[in-house]
């Protein structure tokens, strides 16, 4: 007898009525799901809890007097792997250095958090805001004013 070309996948499945029990198990499973709390979050109204170490938009920290902590040493700009940070320092006679311009291109940034780690003054840190969007590229290049208060960019729906 020639070898048949039909491949029998599972012999056990050919018996009559084999599908009744799985269907009943499936019905019980879906009914259990029906009375379970849905896992969906209503996104702009509810947000998932983010980790304490979440790396979102940058924030330039200020001291008690409201002045920037940053001394424009340029370490963050040096370590930045994607060259997203530009710091232009300014130093008047007998005063501390401060950044004349501090620009972060949020489109280039990969949110690795190296700038936060390398900063000797704790002047730059990453906030938890992850859903900033805008209509053009110019708005995504952040200057000092935007970096001081990143909370305004949280998406609220």
């Amino acid at each position: 007898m020639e070898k048949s070309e039909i491949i029998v996948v599972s012999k056990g499945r050919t018996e009559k009525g084999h599908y009744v029990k799985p269907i009943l198990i499936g019905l019980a499973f879906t009914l259990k799901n029906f009375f379970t709390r849905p896992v969906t979050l209503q996104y702009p109204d509810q947000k998932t809890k983010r980790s304490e170490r979440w790396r979102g938009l940058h924030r330039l920290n200020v001291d008690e007097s409201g002045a920037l902590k940053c001394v424009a040493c340029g370490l963050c700009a040096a370590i930045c792997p994607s060259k997203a940070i530009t710091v232009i320092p300014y130093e008047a006679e007998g005063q501390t250095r401060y950044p004349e311009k501090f620009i972060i291109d949020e489109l280039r940034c990969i949110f690795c958090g190296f700038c936060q780690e390398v900063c000797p003054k704790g002047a730059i840190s990453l906030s938890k805001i992850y859903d900033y969007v805008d209509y053009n590229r110019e708005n995504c290049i952040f200057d000092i004013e935007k970096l001081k208060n990143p909370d305004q960019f949280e998406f609220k729906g």
Partner: protein
Amino acid sequence: MIDYLIIPVIKFVVIFGVCLFFIVYTTWLERKALGHFQLRLGPMRVGYHGLLQPIADGIKNFFKEEVIPENADKAVFVLAPVISISAAIILLAVIPFGNPITIFGKEITLYLANPSIGVLFILGFATLGAYGTILGGWSSGNKYGYMGGLRASAMIISYELSMAFSVIAIIMMSGSFSLVDMVHAQQEGIWNIIRQPVAFFVFFISGIAELNRIPFDMPEAESELCCGYNVEYSSMKFALFFLAEYTHLFVFASLVTTLFLGGWQGPILPGVVWFFIKTFVIIFICIWIRATIPRLRYDKVMKLEWKFMLPVAIANVIVTGAVLALLG
């Protein structure tokens, strides 16, 4: 004058309006229940828990662009949704919703008509609704639509048989074709679902197959035919097909209620409330089945009908007849 014109018109408007309201909200129920079956929430944005969603859908469908394909047979293409919806809505006329009520000393029956062939009327017009599906698929000039129409015709030939045979057993039990008489025949408290479990089983499964719902949604198998017979339909024409489908679901659920679950009968609450409770339990079971079972392969669907359902239904008719004859 009042008996022959005004009361029927008022009854027509009320029954049509209430039923259409329930049918439209069946779409909301389906989306919501399907969501919860899959651990989702379903519609939440439009109104409280998405309660205005059906209205939003209706408005959206009104303002959508109407496309008629170049290859389509235009007259039939336009006619098909109309056949579908009118054959579906006409079924609402013979469903008995409750006991006769008395308003201002006049006795008013809660159905539009009680023809002595009520069941045949429903079976006939339910099949006529399939012409909308078949013609819509065939006239759209699309291979997928054509396949969907072919499948719809094959489904209607096969599952109509077992459905009708399971109804024959009920007709024998109640001794009448009229739906109202069938409800009265279940008055002693024993519903037909207990006296005729096999007929209920066959009727329910063939009914889901007739409705073209998952797991028997052959004419609009999304994964094979990308929506099948209604693939070329847009805007309000599609909405009419959609509405016809849900009207059929509602009529099927109320038919199950009437034939097997004792119709409007029940303790304490008024009959109409009991009728809608039972109807929506059946609709919920249909949604539950949809959420659970995947679509059967086409040949398996046919095998299930011709090799299992039809013989079982015929055997049920013979056994019921023999038992009735022996008991006198």
